[in-house]
């Protein structure tokens, strides 16, 4: 049940990302601030839920993004989100999951995400930046936007995940 609510939450977040957020970004900064709120929540899944959940969520919502904003190619967001969600779940599968660690994951994740997307577009010769330009132009500024979003949603999401895990434990005990 909780899983379904989470999917609904991510769907709403996805729609907000394309419709409400553009109004919040000042006109001159369009293209310089890249918003990946759904991806941040996928990373939370990787660390606090399970890597397979993160993989599936990443693949699904990445594909949704690819289809809804289909410009030149389908696939890069799906691939990157799935891969990084899974990696976050594998590498940070430790006992003590602190807030600082989660924020670190979000920073690195956002950086890797943009780098892989840049790589894919360069591979298909669709990009018009050099890597250094891309880094200064939008990768580093948007890392901080992701960080701020992660800070805002950390507490409620953490509670939510704890609740889900508590429920799961109960279920397994009853069984």
């Amino acid at each position: 049940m909780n899983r379904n609510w989470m999917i609904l939450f991510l769907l709403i977040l996805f729609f907000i990302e394309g419709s409400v957020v553009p109004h919040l970004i000042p006109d001159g900064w369009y293209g310089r601030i890249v918003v990946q709120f759904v991806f941040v929540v996928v990373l939370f899944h990787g660390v606090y839920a399970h890597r397979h959940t993160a993989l599936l969520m990443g693949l699904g919502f990445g594909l949704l993004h690819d289809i809804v904003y289909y410009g030149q190619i389908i696939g890069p967001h799906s691939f990157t989100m799935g891969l990084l969600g899974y990696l976050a779940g594998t590498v940070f599968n430790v006992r003590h999951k602190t807030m600082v660690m989660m924020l670190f994951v979000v920073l690195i994740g956002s950086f890797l995400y943009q780098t892989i997307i840049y790589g894919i577009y360069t591979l298909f010769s669709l990009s018009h930046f050099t890597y250094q330009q891309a880094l200064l132009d939008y990768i580093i500024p948007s890392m901080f936007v992701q960080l701020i979003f992660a800070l805002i949603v950390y507490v409620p999401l953490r509670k939510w995940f704890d609740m889900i895990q508590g429920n799961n434990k109960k279920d397994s005990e009853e069984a």
Partner: protein
Amino acid sequence: MCMNKVTKRHYDEKVLTLFKLLGNKRLFILMLGLILFIALMGFSLGNRGKLTWAEKFVHDTSSFVQQVFYRPTAAVSAFFENVSNLSETYEENERLKTAYAHYIRDKAEYNRVKADNERYKKLLEFTEHQKAQNRPYEYRIAQVTGLNVADPFNQSLNINLGSKNGVQKGMPVIAVEGVVGVISHVSEFSSSVQLLTNIDEKSRAIAVTVQGKENKSFGMIESYDHSNNTFLMTRIEENDPLDEGDVIVSSGLGGKFPAGLIIGKVIKRQVGDIGLTHTAVIEPAATYQDWRELFVVIPPNKGNSSQENGQ
């Protein structure tokens, strides 16, 4: 044997988790996924004519839902913008009054020229096809449903008009100020628009000319400079009358992009890389903002061609 297994497991646990990732099965699945995705990207990269029904369904549904979010937000943001612009209202009113007076004067002139034009067409015995080509464009008003802010290489937006409303791939989309982009993919009830800022050497260049010197000037808009936010216009002849401050409009040569749509203003003219032709730096007329409504331009010989064939 059993002993081996135990030591192996022990070893596995000790080894870094990252190392674990390179286990055989996982590596195999990762490789398979990579190949699949590269294939998918390669497949979707080409010039695809029509979308599959699944893509259309997802696109239509999410555009519809997004619109529910987009419109109220746009209204609120427009309200705040209006409040902050309140002080300029008086000046704007004065400007509009002058513009309206000009318009009334030009309208009389236009009516006369139009009547003349009709008469000449009759005298010169234009064919039906030629007449159809000179018909004015049809403008369809479209609501923006969402903007892509997650990918700087794919600046696109979605609108709520689709193939059911007569929209086709390649039609220009304009704001009041000028050209915004081109329809890139069409679903039944929605379509996506590639912004003109995505233009590069690989996509089709737009033939342009100077407003007021349509027959003397020629050039191509080929690329967009992301660091300066300007277009580069190339292949301008040396003796071309193009000058700084001129308004650049599409010329309609080549047939794909209809004529007369405003693209930008010339900032600078310079000698090109090779020295044979000149290039010009163009400031876009329609810069990015949170558009609420855009117009899809339907050229007369495109939108109704099927109906005419039927008659």
